[in-house]
């Protein structure tokens, strides 16, 4: 068993797939946190998005009323809407009602976890698969050896996720909206004094965060796994929150964290598949350990939003 057997093209492709839901969810959470809202409910929103997207596609496909691409688009839309609504609810609770974000996020998580399973049991019953986003074969590109397998044989949502990384960085760093987000997260009093509505910005980011979390869920249920089951995400939303910290609230670094985490995971799967004799437990541990170690040695240029988790109130 040589390095060639471990670092195969398929491992890199696998890492890219694994990273997709994390990237969606963590980018969304980056927006929310940059504006000062810690949404710990990401996992619950992902589950609702996963179910909503799955169910829409399932309906469209069993009823046969819609052409396949249209059905998938419906799925994405439903996931965005469901996620957006849950993000909006989180915003209402934490911005307008100024609830403690740590707790309300856990409430949102439990709600999403329970409701997605309940609806699944009521409306679907047992696990069923749908025809999700197919892998795209690009002319020429897909056939390039190695690179083709790594980069040019994924489904559409994978590309969307990676495209969102520079886009998010652009929005945060280069637009007036992004400037407002950063200001509101760092010093809401100052933003307020400059006529920026703290509440409106936080509503916007938390809703965006919800939509992306919904999409993260859908990327599992209608693109990567193509079915829904109770607690489908298995806690990925929490890892996504951790990755936001890993990336120091910068989209590119957050995505890099997601890739590192996923790559180690893909690698340990590959090592076990080809029969290396290490205890499974330690292999499964690897991504978590390496993520921490990476952060220990990384030089940190963190931009922790100082107002994170702090509801804003004028001193009145």
């Amino acid at each position, binding site marked *: 068993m040589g390095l060639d057997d471990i670092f195969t093209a398929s491992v890199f492709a696998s890492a890219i797939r694994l990273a997709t839901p994390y990237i969606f969810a963590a980018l969304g959470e980056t927006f929310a946190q940059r504006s000062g809202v810690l949404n710990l409910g990401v996992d619950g929103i992902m589950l609702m998005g996963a179910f909503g997207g799955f169910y829409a596609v399932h309906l469209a496909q069993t009823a046969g009323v819609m052409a396949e691409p249209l059905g998938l688009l419906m799925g994405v839309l439903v996931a965005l809407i469901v996620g957006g609504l849950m993000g909006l609810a989180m915003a209402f609770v934490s911005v307008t009602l100024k609830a403690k974000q740590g707790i309300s996020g856990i409430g949102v998580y439990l709600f999403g976890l329970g409701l997605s399973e309940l609806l699944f049991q009521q409306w679907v019953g047992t696990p069923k698969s749908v025809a999700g986003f197919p892998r795209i074969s690009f002319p020429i590109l897909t056939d390039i050896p190695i690179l083709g397998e790594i980069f040019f044989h994924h489904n559409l949502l994978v590309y969307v996720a990676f495209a969102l990384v520079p886009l998010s960085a652009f929005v945060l760093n280069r637009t007036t909206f992004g400037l407002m987000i950063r200001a509101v997260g760092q010093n809401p009093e100052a933003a307020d004094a400059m006529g920026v509505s703290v509440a409106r910005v936080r509503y916007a980011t938390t809703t965006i965060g919800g939509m992306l979390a919904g999409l993260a869920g859908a990327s599992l249920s209608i693109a990567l796994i193509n079915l829904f089951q109770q607690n489908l995400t298995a806690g990925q939303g929490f890892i996504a929150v951790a990755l936001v910290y890993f990336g120091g609230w910068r989209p590119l670094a957050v995505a890099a964290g997601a890739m590192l985490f996923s790559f180690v995971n893909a690698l340990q799967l590959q090592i076990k598949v080809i029969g290396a004799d290490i205890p*499974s437990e330690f292999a499964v541990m690897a991504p978590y350990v390496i993520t921490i170690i990476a952060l220990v040695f990384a030089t940190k240029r963190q931009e922790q939003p100082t107002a994170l988790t702090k509801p804003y109130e004028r001193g009145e």
Partner: protein
Amino acid sequence: QDDVFRVAAVAPSATNDLAFSQSMHDALMAIQMQMGEDAFQFDFQDGTFIVDDAAVALREWAASGDYDLVIAHGSQFGSVVEELAAEFPEVSFAWGTDFNTFGMDNVSAYTAAADQGGFVNGVMAGLMTESGVIGVVGPIEVGDAKLYVDGFVAGVGASNPEATVNVVYIQSFSDVPQATEAAETHIANGADILTGTAQMVVGPIAIANENGARWFGTQASQAELAQGAGVAFQVYKWDVVLSEIVANIQAGDLGGQSYELTLANGGLVMEFDA
């Protein structure tokens, strides 16, 4: 007491998980069909991953005196059964999968010889594989799951010693994304046949289907989910041992035995998807 035979059961996952919990729920339904609703009724609490939640239910049922049989479906509930059985000697308990009745007269233990169906599946898989590579997605390397996987590996070895069986334990019974990616990794490494056990295999089944690989299942029939990919499923018919336990209790024997599902006693049934 009335003529109705009342059973109460806890199971860790959902009743429609296409796996462990569903197999028990199906069995209770089957017995109810056999005996009729006037003669057999059951309460079922699913989703009690948390042992203490199951403990509360089990204690309440035991203390109520309303049930002829209390079932703890899940080997993690053993300690709870051990304690309750001592405290409520007049109540009959059944639990599994395990052999251990703790030496108590009111405890029945049940288990499945999962290696038998695993072996059958393995033999077929060994014969069917064209690539010579077979992938297994297991949860944690214990009990029922380990039995099945070991049986499967042995079966492949018997029919096709040349074939490679790659086994991955993902260290979770429920992590679907991880199981899914494990299956992808198998496929990437050339597997054309997949198998696995526990409720997270729904992911690998979908992957098998998507990649034109074949799927061998266990615990319950996953034919519908697997669509064309499914080949054979080892189905647990707990009703075989449950009928026996029920009959014993009706005859005044509260327990003390352990039971095993086997292909021979009809507790394990191979179902095929053509």
